[in-house]
């Protein structure tokens, strides 16, 4: 046995890649779980193919999973990976652009057959022709070693092959000095009813670890020490999971039923799937015949006193836009979750983008303002969804929650709140012993009062036709219409008096203020932290509510030489910043279906500051 050394690292990014059927998501999730239990901060992002069952070995069928973990705070799943685990040539081919120039590559050498190489578009074996120069390549016969480890187990050759992801996981566990117990326990639970599979997976996991320990191939193992993390109880959540929990919590806290009307669409389908399990919370779920029916049913439920919610993505938002206008006009509470994906049209459904901002702000006929809140991280989807419900019922308005593929599928540890600490959601319905005027408004919020069908004496009619203020009668009166248009706009602005304002990160003046929204938060924060450590006079202001805009931004925005707006679109927020604050904002835009990268954003900001 060779002597092996151990080395400490601050942070590591690992990318697992393989065929859709290779179990890479599972492998990644197991590594994530174990890493979380070792108290590292972390962030993950899966990169699925759009095809459900892509042909084995094809580049477009590669499924990836990236995890960034550290002994310090982590805000992104990492730019380029330090380590790549590639289960076949296609995985290698597809992943090279996502890894460092000197990355460690662990390959399943057995999968580098002529057929697989051809499928991946390699004319020659890249492990043998010097094409991987600069990388630290470890070619391991993962398939063969897996078969060997399972020699005595009565599974077919093909079945044994399916265990190979655990061999790879075993190797990585040794390399990063991770305990195997969490995964061992998981396997025991998962395969309790299938003893053969239980045994096989455990054997392979151990074999992988033992191999790494024994082989001369790996000389060094690494250790990422415990991070300083705020005390509390944590769990791993994806953005979609957090959003669902937020909605359920809001239903419980408001004492009303959540009614989710939705139509399957990537990447929002999961929300309907998960919500449909929570019927014991009084959550009603309705899979509608189309996107319009989904929001229509939600709005109908809101009319009856449930809290109507719908979840969709860009193309679905487009179909719902007429209904959003009706929701604005009838002033009923409604929460619309737009999990953005790369567009236009079908675009790239599994890839991320922030390009629905214009659509949700402006994509309706007439003057139809509604409230827009954007989540900034996977766990923050919980708070955004909860707050959206609170504002929707308080202001009797539709509220759009913006998330995206990056947040929806990405995961991070969530510091689980004490449910009694959540802000109350109070609703005051119209009472049968008072004269009810459908459009009489609350003086502070300008919200009209909610009167539920079934309540005696409150019969009234609402609809898409313009209504007379206070009485709610149909009205074509010019002055009334002018007043109502303004009231609807003012009502949304009043939300600003009731919600928390973002805090500026950094000094209140300086060379550059970075203004961003939504899922770019983690990247921008990481960049600004680094720049400030390097002595740059850069500050950061991240929007939460985009409509209404926060009041405090106005206070700071003039104090900086430059205002820089990074977005995963062509400058949708930037145009708003320019027109609202009359500043010459500079854009940084990338629309690649990928989250912004720390390194690229940092370079761009440095250049903008240097250009003066």
């Amino acid at each position, binding site marked *: 046995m060779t002597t092996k050394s151990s080395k400490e690292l601050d942070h590591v990014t690992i990318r697992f890649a393989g065929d859709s059927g290779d179990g890479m998501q599972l492998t990644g999730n197991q590594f994530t779980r174990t890493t979380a239990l070792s108290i590292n901060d972390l962030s993950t992002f899966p990169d699925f193919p759009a095809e459900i069952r892509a042909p084995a070995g094809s580049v477009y069928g590669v499924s990836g999973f990236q995890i960034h973990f550290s002994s310090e705070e982590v805000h992104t799943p990492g730019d380029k990976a330090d380590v790549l685990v590639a289960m076949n040539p296609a995985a290698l081919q597809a992943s090279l652009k996502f890894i460092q120039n000197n990355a460690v590559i662990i390959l399943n050498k057995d999968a580098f057959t002529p057929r697989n190489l051809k499928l991946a578009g390699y004319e020659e074996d890249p492990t043998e022709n010097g094409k991987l120069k600069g990388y630290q390549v470890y070619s391991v016969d993962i398939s063969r070693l897996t078969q060997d480890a399972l020699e005595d187990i009565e599974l077919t050759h093909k079945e044994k092959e399916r265990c190979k992801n655990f061999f790879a996981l075993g190797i990585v566990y040794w390399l990063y000095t991770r305990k195997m117990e969490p995964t061992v326990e998981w396997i025991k639970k998962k395969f309790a009813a299938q003893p053969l599979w239980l045994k096989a997976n455990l054997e392979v996991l151990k074999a992988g670890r033992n191999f790494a320990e024994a082989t001369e191939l790996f000389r060094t193992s690494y250790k990422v020490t415990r991070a300083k993390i705020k005390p509390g109880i944590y769990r791993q959540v994806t953005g979609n999971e957090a959003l669902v929990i937020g909605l359920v919590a809001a239903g419980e806290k408001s004492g009303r039923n959540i009614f989710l009307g939705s139509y399957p669409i990537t990447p929002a389908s999961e929300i309907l799937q998960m919500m449909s399990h929570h*019927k014991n919370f009084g959550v009603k779920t309705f899979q509608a015949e189309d996107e319009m029916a989904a929001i*229509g049913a939600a709005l109908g439920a809101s009319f*009856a006193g449930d809290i109507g919610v719908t979840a969709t993505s860009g193309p679905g938002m487009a179909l719902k836009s007429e209904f959003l206008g009706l929701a604005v006009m009838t002033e009923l509470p409604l929460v619309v979750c737009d999990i953005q994906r790369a567009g236009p049209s079908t675009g790239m459904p599994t890839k991320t983008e922030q390009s629905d901002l214009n659509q949700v702000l402006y994509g309706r006929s007439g003057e139809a303002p509604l409230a827009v809140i954007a989540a900034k991280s996977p766990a923050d989807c919980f708070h955004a969804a909860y707050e959206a419900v609170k504002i929707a019922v308080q202001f009797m308005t539709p509220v759009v929650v913006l998330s995206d593929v990056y947040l929806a599928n990405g995961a991070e540890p969530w510091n689980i709140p004490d449910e009694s600490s959540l802000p109350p959601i109070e609703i005051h319905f119209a009472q049968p012993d008072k004269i009810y005027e459908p459009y009489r408004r609350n003086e502070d919020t300008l919200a009209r009062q909610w009167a539920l*069908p079934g309540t005696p004496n409150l019969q009234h009619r609402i609809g898409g036709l313009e209504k007379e203020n206070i009485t709610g009668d149909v009205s074509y009166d010019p002055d009334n219409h002018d007043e109502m248009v303004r009231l609807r706009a003012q009502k949304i602005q009043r939300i600003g008096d009731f919600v928390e304002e973002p805090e500026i990160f950094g000094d209140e003046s300086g060379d550059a203020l970075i203004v961003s929204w939504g899922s770019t938060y983690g990247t921008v924060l990481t960049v600004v932290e680094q720049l400030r450590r390097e002595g740059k006079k850069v500050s950061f202001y991240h929007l939460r509510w985009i409509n209404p805009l926060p009041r405090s931004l106005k206070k700071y925005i003039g104090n900086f030489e430059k205002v820089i707006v990074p977005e995963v679109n062509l400058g949708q927020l930037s145009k708003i910043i320019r027109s609202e604050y009359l500043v010459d904002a500079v854009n940084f835009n990338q629309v690649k279906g990928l989250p912004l990268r720390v390194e690229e954003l940092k370079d761009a900001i440095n250049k903008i500051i240097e250009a003066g």
Partner: protein
Amino acid sequence: MAEKVAEQKVEAKIKKSESREVKEDFGSDQEVRWCPGCGDYAILAQMKRVLPDLGIPREKTVFISGIGCSSRFPYYMNTYGFHTIHGRAPTIATGLKLANPELSVWLITGDGDGLSIGGNHLIHLFRRNLNINVVLFNNQIYGLTKGQFSPTSPVGKVTKTTPYGSLSNPFNPISMALAAGASFVARTIDRHTKHMAEIFRRAVDHEGCSFVEVYQNCNIFNDGAFKELTEAETKLDTVIQLEDGQPLVYGKENNKGLQLKGFNFEVKDIRDEKDVSGLHVHAEKTTNTAYAYLLSKLSDNPEMPTPIGVFRKFDEKPYEIKFHEQMEAVKEKKGKGDLKKLFLTSDTWTVD
């Protein structure tokens, strides 16, 4: 002073709501703005006449509509109402009914609203079988947009958008409702007011989705579309009234009947009792679509009488009941939802 007046108003309202409701109670204070002579007035009048007899209080009654002349209906009823957007009324009605199954929900639509822009929603409403009463005003024309052909306009119809005649085959709404699985399918005519009232009553009594097609005259853009079915001198020979358990008989002297021959109906002259016994006997309570479907096709054939009445009715637990039963069953099985547990599901770890 104003407060006192308001108080008195409330008191009067409460007092009123405690007494038995009459026709006038169901009318709202809004001025009805359909064209004079429009068939819609007759439908509104029958609705107001029928509702007080049902024993369902106004506050538990909701009218939902889409867009079009017919869809102004909710504004004229002193119940809860929602005038929604074009074609989408079934979606709002579905959400409303699932949110509160105790409400008596009426959906008012037209041939353009329900069969063209909203066709998809309507068929899905039928297949789900929510206990909602759908009334489709069929005037075979777009009235509110001033005279374009609709999905029920006959081939050859000259309208503003078909100056050389319409080319598209019309929908038969009854056939469509049957095929989509509506559990109560009926037709009536605006001028047959007593029949209409009876059909409305039966629609409400039916526990499930009730579909009522009303032939309705648009006296401005499509006047006389159903003239043969409504004029005294022709109607007895052109309309056959379906009655459960009764042979299919019609005609001025009850002198004609229908019998099945293969997959078609045939007209048979009735001279004596013996002839009647050979006629087909109407049986509305069936899930078998074939017979009702044949019946629905009669109105497409100018040689045959147009049926009015209930084509088919079958009992099936409405969707909203199943929906809530399932929720209760899950509650029973999992126990009432507990947020703390929800937050802590999946693996957690503690950082000290």
